[in-house]
């Protein structure tokens, strides 16, 4: 259940972010979770909800983007999606580190991280934002 550690890190980071600014309310926190990271989405949501209960950000939504895995093969120069083990016993096909092209060993190059991507909040004071950063699923207006 390392999702609890991850969720705690999210909440600590956001609370720190809030404490440094004139923020009335956090609407949503957006995460980017790599396909090759070992984070279970439902558990992460549950932990986030449980931890934020007693905090200033208790009503905030947690939005999760899955970042697809990309691998690179040093044997045949393949670069792209990994080979999946379709008939393993998991609920979903399992990404492997076997090259889909030549069967050699590949290195993961994308989809291993788990990061806070952005935060959406209501502020009393004007805040400088990066243009085009609004990538939240639902527009609250």
């Amino acid at each position, binding site marked *: 259940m390392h999702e609890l550690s991850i969720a705690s890190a999210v909440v600590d980071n956001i609370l720190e*972010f809030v404490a440094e600014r004139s923020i009335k309310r956090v*609407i949503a926190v957006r995460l980017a979770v790599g396909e090759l990271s070992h984070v279970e989405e439902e558990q992460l949501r549950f932990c986030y909800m449980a931890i934020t209960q007693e905090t200033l950000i208790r009503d905030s939504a947690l939005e999760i983007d899955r970042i697809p895995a990309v691998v690179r093969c040093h044997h045949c120069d393949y670069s792209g999606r990994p080979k999946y*083990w379709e008939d393993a016993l998991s609920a979903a096909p399992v990404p492997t580190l076997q090259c889909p092209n030549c069967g050699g060993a590949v290195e993961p190059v994308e989809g291993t*991280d788990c990061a806070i991507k952005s935060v959406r909040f209501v*502020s009393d004071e004007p805040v400088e*934002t*990066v243009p085009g950063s609004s990538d939240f699923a639902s527009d*609250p*207006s």
Partner: protein
Amino acid sequence: MIQQIEASPDEIYDIELEHSLLEANAKLAQENRALLDHHGITAIDVMGAIGSGKTTLITRLVEGLKDQIGVAVFNGDATTSNDADLIASQSVPVVQIATVKGCHLDANLVGKALRKTKLDNLRLIFIENIGNLICPAEFPLGSKARVVVVSVTEGPYMVRKHPHMFLGAQLVVINKIDLAEAMGVSVSELSEDVHRLKPDITVIPTSCKTGAGIDQVNSALLAV
């Protein structure tokens, strides 16, 4: 039903943070690694399920190495010191890392253990992770190699049931091979499953009871 009033959109802001949640641990792991490299020490992270034989394997490996090189063991366990006591019987330095409710070791805990250890004259440190097949994978500790211990008593589908653990490992030990026949488990099929996930990984079948494969594991670890 709770009524909610939305703020007008001009008061709503989005800020990009791009803040990695795994970075804090990864950075501490790098610091541990730098400290280990400075002392010429190789740390080996030993992962695997409860009962896979991690402690017994480490005890056997230490037995074969302690007269040749300086060896220490960090023993991660939720609450008890049983495993640490067992390894301490080999008269090598042992640090017990109690995670209490934690399901994995992290780089911070290992860093603390490193600061408690006399590093001079050590060549190898075994870090026994918590018996868990998922969580430790996400938290590198600063080791040079990660070993997954699988035992035939975990059944024939052990590898395909817990694939993620193997992707970040450099060595897989298939343990308790003396029981393979009684269990009706094929060691070569387990090995094939591992290679299907990661073609270049080294797989060594062992039996801590008969001593089969122990020297091979030690040679592989000293070569990393």
